[in-house]
Structures are given as C-alpha cells and as structure tokens.
C-alpha cells in the first residue's frame, strides 16, 4: 500500500484537518455513514448483535433485581442455620437446668461415699495394727509394711474425698463443651 499523501500538515498535528478530510473523501467528517448490509456484516459489533445486543453473562454483573433475589436466599439460609444452632443450644441449656438438682444430689452422694471409703480404709488400718497384739507370732515386718501401705491408701482416699466434698459444694454453671 502506498503511503497516504498530504495527510500530515506541517509541524502541527499528525492528523489531517477536516478540510483535508472533506477533500479526500468527498463527505462531511461529522455525518454518520448510513449502515449498509455489507458494513454491518463486517462490523466489529456483529458478535454483540448475535446476543440480542447485550454483553455475555460472564462479562458483566447481574442486574440488580437478580442480585437482590440471590442475596435474600443466602440470608434466609444463614438465618436458618443460626436458628437451628440456637434451638440446639436452648434444648441443651434447658436439659442442663432440668438436671441441675439431680447433679447436685449426685455430687454430694459421691462425696459421702468417698468419705465412707476412707472410713473403711481407716478401719482396715486399725485392724492391721491390732494384728500384732492378737497374733504375736506373725511377721511384724509384714504387719508394719501393710499398715504403711494402707495408711498411704487412706491418705489418698481421704484427700480425694475432701476434694469431692469441695467439688460438691461448688456452684454449678452451664458449660457448653467440656467433654464429649
């Protein structure tokens, strides 16, 4: 293709003036050219025209009403989940408060029974201690060792019983997840 002649006028702009354009083409620069069939066929717009004159779905955001509807559905689902959670927690809570009195009674009972266990260990310790007077021929080292071991067991059981007693006197609070 031959380079276009006289398009650049000297030293001012790289573009031709309107007069030059009119001289070159024979029509006014600012008038729209009527769309002929061939023009439309070659136009860059024809891809867009295929889709009803609208951009592709992926090329744009969705219209406002669609967006609003979608958001509403999302919010409803979220609220539903939240409601279910709250319901479960409420049921859990009410069950806890229904059981509260029973829990208190059970804790006290366990503390009592631990004290009884410690008492029985004490009785065993006394029994072991009295062996050496009742049966003087028995091995005294064995008696002493047994008495010490029973004493250790008694101490451990008594400490555990005291801790259970304190535990049974503590205020009970609602806890959500402590043990499975």
């Amino acid at each position: 293709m031959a380079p276009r002649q006289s398009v650049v006028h000297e030293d001012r702009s790289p573009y031709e003036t309107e007069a030059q354009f009119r001289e070159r083409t024979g029509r006014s620069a600012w008038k729209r050219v009527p769309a002929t069939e061939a023009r439309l066929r070659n136009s860059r717009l024809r891809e867009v025209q295929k889709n009803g004159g609208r951009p592709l779905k992926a090329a744009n955001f969705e219209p406002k009403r669609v967006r609003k509807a979608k958001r509403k559905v999302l919010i409803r689902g979220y609220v539903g989940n939240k409601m279910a959670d709250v319901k479960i927690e409420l049921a859990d809570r009410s069950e806890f408060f229904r059981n509260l009195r029973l829990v208190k009674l059970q804790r006290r009972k366990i503390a009592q029974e631990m004290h009884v266990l410690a008492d029985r260990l004490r009785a065993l310790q006394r029994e072991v201690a009295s062996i050496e007077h009742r049966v003087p021929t028995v091995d005294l080292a064995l008696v002493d060792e047994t008495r010490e071991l029973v004493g250790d067991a008694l101490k451990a059981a008594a400490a555990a019983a005291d801790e259970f007693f304190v535990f049974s006197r503590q205020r009970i609070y609602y806890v959500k997840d402590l043990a499975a």
Partner: protein
Amino acid sequence: MTSTYLGSRVDDIDAQMDRVASLIDSAGRIDRELAAGLGCNASMASVQVRIDTALANTESLLKAVRAATKK
C-alpha cells in the same frame, strides 16, 4: 484360734469402691464437669493403685496370720 476381720474389711472396701465407681459412672452422664474429671484433682486411677497395693498386702498378711494361727 484368733479370728480377725481382715478379710471382711477388704471385701467392704472392694464393695465401696464398686459403689463409688457406679455412682460416678451414672452421674457422669448428666454431669459434664464430673465426666471431665474436675471432681478431684488427683486422678482416681492413682488412688485406686494405692488401695489395690494396700489390699494385696493385706491379703498376704491374712495368709501369714492364718499360717501362724494354724500351728
């Protein structure tokens, strides 16, 4: 012949341990803190080990007493 109550004491303690165990077992179903082991700082397992060794020693003492009184 001298009679001792060692054997019955051991049986008592065993029965009491069973009782506490069943109590804790049934209470742990509705009591989460107890089930998590907050009832007692020392673990029940260590207490049980001490009681078991004491009772085992008592049994051997009982045997020794029986052997000594038989003569």
